[in-house]
């Protein structure tokens, strides 16, 4: 063809399947994508800057709103970073750690459920969407019982948890984690063997291990390119080293592989949750660090020390020593990192968040250029991005 004129399509920020407010400038030759340029920033709220004017505790609610599909993971990464900065990582009580792991895995399930729901819907399988949201609803109910909020949990605290688990919740979680693997089989029954699903996903959005590492891809997307890397195992935190789970590594590098891997991860998460439930023993849920953790209400009312600690932490916050830390965790979507710089004041001098979605999104142009318009949708879905985290 002599005339190679391309058509530019603005996909998003208001488009049903850009998962929020992502804007993609697509140059199309017919239906083939010649060039894809993601534009981000439509959801920018300045979380990093805001945190510089808040005490360390006051930033926790802001982290809920990063990856709003996995708030507990965001909380966890942040409190771990602050604990590392304070040097109290070892003082976290066992019960708090176990609950953290359990809820982080529950959050992984929740995040993966939304991913599968929207991914399947994007490819046209609408029933899976509703099945996944039915299960997500149960997780949200558990969230609500534990933290009082359905989406923005704000449950973890520097040094432990904001409150102990409510009575009876462990049975709910156990029941859910026991039935979840069967439900994952249901989703697989609708999708995995379906010829159309296979045709839409196998070989779509390929990325090699070298490219994945160069771009900085993390999470299931990296592991599906054959790189065996999972922070839960390779750089454990919160006692992940004590759990028995399999890191799902596949080498098919495509959308189908990432789909299978995430489903397998959901099964592994259920195992971890059940192990955590078995480990759960009564005990304190806050570290014994009176200058960091709020004292129990009893002490505030009855003892002078308690009152002073409460007053100081609330009005001023705590002051970590001068220094900087980086703490990465294996969030559902990849490596979520918090980089904190302290100048000795009660506010961080700088907080930098490394959101997995932001880095993973960089792989998108490479993955879609040369493929068809419909593959762009499948690829956005398979990268599992969430704009709250990309724009911060």
């Amino acid at each position: 063809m002599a005339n190679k004129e391309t058509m530019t399509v603005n996909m998003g920020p208001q488009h049903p399947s850009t998962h929020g407010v992502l804007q993609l400038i697509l140059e199309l030759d017919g239906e083939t994508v010649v060039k894809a340029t993601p534009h981000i920033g439509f959801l920018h709220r300045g979380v990093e800057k805001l945190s510089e004017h808040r005490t360390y505790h006051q930033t926790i609610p802001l982290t809920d709103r990063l990856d709003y599909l996995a708030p507990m993971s965001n909380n966890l990464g942040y409190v771990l970073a602050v604990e590392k900065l304070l040097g109290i990582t070892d003082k976290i009580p066992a019960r708090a750690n176990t609950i953290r792991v359990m809820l982080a895995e529950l959050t992984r399930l929740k995040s993966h459920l939304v991913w599968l729901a929207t991914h399947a819907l994007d490819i046209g399988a609408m029933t899976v969407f509703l099945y996944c949201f039915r299960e997500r609803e149960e997780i949200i109910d558990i969230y609500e019982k534990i933290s009082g909020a359905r989406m923005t949990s704000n449950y973890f605290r520097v040094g432990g948890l904001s409150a102990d688990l409510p009575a009876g919740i462990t049975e709910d979680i156990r029941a859910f984690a026991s039935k979840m693997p069967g439900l994952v089989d249901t989703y697989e029954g609708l999708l995995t063997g379906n010829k159309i699903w296979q045709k839409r996903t196998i070989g779509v959005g390929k990325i090699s291990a070298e490219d994945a590492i160069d771009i900085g891809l993390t999470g299931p997307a990296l592991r599906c390119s054959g790189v065996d890397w999972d922070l839960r195992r390779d750089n454990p935190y919160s006692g992940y080293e004590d759990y028995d789970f399999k890191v799902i590594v596949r080498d098919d590098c495509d959308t189908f592989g990432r789909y299978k891997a995430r489903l397998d991860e959901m099964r592994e998460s259920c195992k971890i949750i059940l192990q955590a439930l078995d480990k759960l023993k009564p005990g304190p849920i806050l570290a014994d660090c009176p200058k960091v953790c709020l004292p129990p209400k009893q002490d505030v009312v009855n003892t002078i020390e308690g009152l002073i600690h409460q007053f100081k932490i609330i009005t001023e916050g705590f002051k970590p020593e001068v220094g900087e830390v980086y703490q990465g965790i294996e969030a559902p979507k990849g490596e979520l990192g918090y980089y904190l710089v302290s100048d000795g004041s009660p506010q961080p001098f700088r907080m930098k968040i490394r959101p997995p979605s932001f880095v993973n999104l960089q792989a998108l142009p490479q993955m879609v250029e040369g493929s068809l318009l419909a593959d762009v949708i499948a690829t956005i879905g398979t990268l599992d991005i969430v704009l709250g985290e990309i724009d911060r």
Partner: protein
Amino acid sequence: MDPVLLSFSSDPAAFLVVMVAKILVVFTVLMLIVAYATWCERKVIGHMQTRLGPMETGWHGLLQPIADGIKLFFKEDIIPAEASKIPFILAPIMILVPALITAAVIPFGADLTIPAKFILPFSSGLEGVSYIVPQQISELNIGILFVLAMAGLGVYGIVLAGWASNSKYSLLGGLRSSAQVISYELAAGLTLVAVFMLSESLSLRDIVALQMQPLNGVAGFLSFLPDWVPNWYVFSQPVAFVLFVICGMAEINRTPFDLPEAETELVSGFCTEYSSMKYAMFFMAEYANMVIIAAIAATLFLGGWGAPMNIAIFQAVPGAVWLLLKIFTFMFFFIWLRATWPRVRYDQLMFLGWKVFLPLALANIIVTGLVVVLLQ
């Protein structure tokens, strides 16, 4: 006096009265099915997806289609400033009209013998005269070709809608749709050729009549079958039947071939820019097409208005009931697929159409031809 076939030449007045009545009945029934197909679709998919579907408007949401209609009717009718006005307005009409007039050639029952006095009660001199009235709006001897022609006309509406909206998503949707409809029409048309080879007639009425004969009379080796098994073409042409239903789904843009309006890719495809009644017309056309494809598939392969078994008790039921039952079965199947399957990709769709279905349909014609010749 023997009853005569009612035609324009035999009695113009009675012919017109009967014709208007038939058109009104078919149109009303079709529109009712269209309206309640939306309700059924929402209910069926709803229950498949562990929810209830419409529940608020009327008992179990039964008034929902009416509420939807009223809502769409009162919505502001927006024509984009950059759109080409006349094609933009014409497009929805051009989609809906061919869909509706296809219903004209579908037979829905055995011929009726009606006394002329019943048709024209106020005219004199008709004592003892009665007319044969076919239960079909128009008895075309090339009924099938008419169906294919009308299906082809519908594409113009889609292309025009995509082009006139002056929106890129609409354009992509329109282009996808026209390519899809044209390529699948070819395969669908070829599957029908095998049916003509058996029926040796293009008239839908004759085809239905042939299918009501017992299957054991077709060939010697089938004589073990009981007399009540009808000679439905689905038995002699299973490949053509499957191909026709699949191609039919592609032609009417149903899941898994709903690319032109693939919401997650093209927003709403060719009807992105449409609102109000114009949008409603696209919607009605989609469902009307569903009914029509179901009716044609039933007529050509499942014996049309004929009873499923040649037993007196079944044959006593009016033909229209059987036809509607068959249509509803197909509609349920279409809805079921929508709840279950993902969407194919554009290139895969074209591949299927040209490289799988078309050769299969051609091979089917050759095999049918050989068998017909051998059986003679």
